């Protein structure tokens, strides 16, 4: 049994940012990592994925992008290298290839059992991210056995797909990107779209992430929104990290031949049933986008931003006059279903009474329980808490708290 002041679980952006902040405060710690630094970026991402935020917006405590293309979007090998460089620059004490089996309370602190021995610590920071498990709805079990099912974790690229049609369920960032590249590879693609957030990649000559940062939307705090639970559930923006600055909305996908249908509402008698609410979901999305663009225009005018192109409004989302409401799954038209239906964290190893009735981790701004912290969750303290660029300020705040309470809690 080893004892240490603080343990961080996970060596992704959140864990590495926290490690940097702890080192800066002279707090002894280790970072426990199931694989290597940036493990989920190595193992759980498809080949063509690029970050949805531009390179310049990848600032971490004590580290930032210094490459040649600040407006580009990192590929996965570049992300892995970036975090590797950060870990090296921070001298992060990473214990790699160490699986956490269990966390429980012990002696006023926490006992961490791993497949490479146990630790006792005063403070524990959960930095395992929000995307450990791909959500697959229960209706997946009603799909015919000859249809192949994939989650985004197992999807690498169109080359691994059988010939034939692909049904992609979910039209957030993952769903629209996969629909686009699988359609481009020549497959018939049906995209089932429920509530979604339509967003131009580029607006008035600037990247949308520049706008969100400059207008203060990224930094909005939990106290600034009416209903933080709702804000935390907002689906990912329909964006792709692309130097061509492509606006990857449902209109663009339809133009490329993707059939857009309503949310997958059920599978009955071998038929996939799609919701008739596509028109309303599209209208809600258009209204939300236009509200945001109007707010950005207001901000630009108030703050006198120079060198912007004129304000612009985009055509409403077009939907087919009679979107298909069902699809016979026994006819061989659909050979693959991809569940782009979101992700959730895995806390199966966390044996503490810190969950709500729906199994979600209770926390207040990252504080879970005395000495127990979480980092990197959507809108944890600010709207960009789950982004590379946002995790740093949360890590600073929690590291400050660990520093202040040091010695006051008996191990």
């Amino acid at each position, binding site marked *: 049994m080893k004892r240490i002041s603080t343990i961080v679980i996970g060596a992704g952006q959140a864990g590495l940012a926290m490690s940097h902040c702890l080192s800066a405060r002279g707090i002894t710690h280790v970072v426990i990592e199931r694989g290597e630094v940036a493990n989920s970026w190595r193992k759980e991402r498809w080949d063509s994925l690029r970050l949805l935020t531009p390179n310049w917006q990848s600032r971490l405590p004590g580290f930032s992008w210094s490459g040649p293309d600040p407006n580009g979007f990192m590929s996965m090998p570049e992300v892995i290298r970036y975090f590797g460089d950060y870990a090296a620059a921070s001298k992060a004490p990473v214990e790699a290839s160490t699986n956490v089996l269990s966390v429980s309370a012990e002696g006023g602190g926490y006992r961490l059992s791993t497949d490479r021995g146990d630790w006792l610590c005063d403070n524990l920071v959960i930095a395992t991210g929000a995307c450990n498990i791909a959500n697959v709805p229960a209706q997946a079990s009603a799909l015919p056995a000859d249809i192949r099912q994939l989650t985004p974790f197992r999807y690498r690229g169109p080359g691994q797909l059988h010939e034939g049609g692909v049904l992609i369920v979910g039209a957030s960032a993952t769903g629209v990107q996969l629909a686009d590249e699988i359609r481009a590879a020549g497959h018939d693609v049906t995209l089932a779209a429920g509530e979604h957030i339509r967003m131009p990649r580029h607006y008035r000559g600037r990247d949308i992430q520049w706008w969100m940062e400059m207008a203060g939307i990224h930094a909005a705090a939990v106290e600034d929104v009416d209903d933080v639970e709702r804000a935390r559930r907002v689906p990912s923006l329909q964006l792709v990290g692309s130097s061509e600055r492509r606006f990857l909305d449902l209109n663009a996908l339809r133009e490329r031949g993707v059939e857009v249908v*309503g*949310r997958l*509402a*059920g599978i*009955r008698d071998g038929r996939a*049933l799609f*919701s*008739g*609410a596509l028109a*309303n979901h599209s*209208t*809600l999305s258009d*209204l939300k986008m*236009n*509200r945001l663009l109007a707010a950005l225009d207001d901000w630009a005018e108030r703050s006198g931003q120079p060198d912007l192109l004129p304000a612009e409004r985009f055509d409403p989302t077009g939907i087919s006059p*009679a979107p298909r409401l069902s699809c016979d799954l026994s006819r061989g038209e659909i050979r693959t279903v991809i569940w782009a239906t979101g992700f959730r964290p895995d806390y199966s190893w966390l044996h503490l009474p810190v969950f709500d*009735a729906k199994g979600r981790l209770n926390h207040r701004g990252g504080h879970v329980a005395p000495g127990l912290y979480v980092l990197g969750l959507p809108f944890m303290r600010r709207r960009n808490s789950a982004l590379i660029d946002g995790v740093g300020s949360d890590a600073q705040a929690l590291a400050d708290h660990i520093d202040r309470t040091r010695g006051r809690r008996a191990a």
Partner: protein
Amino acid sequence: MNIAVKTDNGVNTEALMGARGAFEQMPQAAAFTFRSACDWIQGTQNRNAINGYFGLGQEHARKQTFTIDSDHPEVFAAADKAPTPPEIVLAALASCLTGGLASVAQHRGIQLHSARAIVEGDIDVRGILGMDPDIRNGFSAIRVTFEIDADASREDIEALVAQSQKRSAVFDILTNPTSVAVAVA
């Protein structure tokens, strides 16, 4: 000069928001069961009696029983004493969206002066006559058009209409499948 006038669409949104808080503490109280008892009268005419419902953990009886009659029009060789069931479904959709509209407007501080929903549903009756298995029994399409006079911009009114669909029980019932079990007692 702006005079602050309190929005009054006659919807008690404070009570509804209070209910949200209560259901967060006691989710089982939010489980409601609604009912209708339908008696055959003559021909295609029948009458629904609607009174009791279950909710907030107990049975509720209303002060009065409501009735909804249904029949079929003369072109179907019926007595035309009441609307058809599909028309009642259209009416239910319009009522649900219109009630939702008033509630959302109240919550957003938007005063309604008038609101009317015109609902149309297209149906190919060869379906219910069993003439063509490719034609469904129900509506192939439903259209709702709102005429709204309110103290709000067109965009805010469109947002009210969109939100009323998002939170509508009947809109959900019509756009998503529901498991229906019918048995003989």
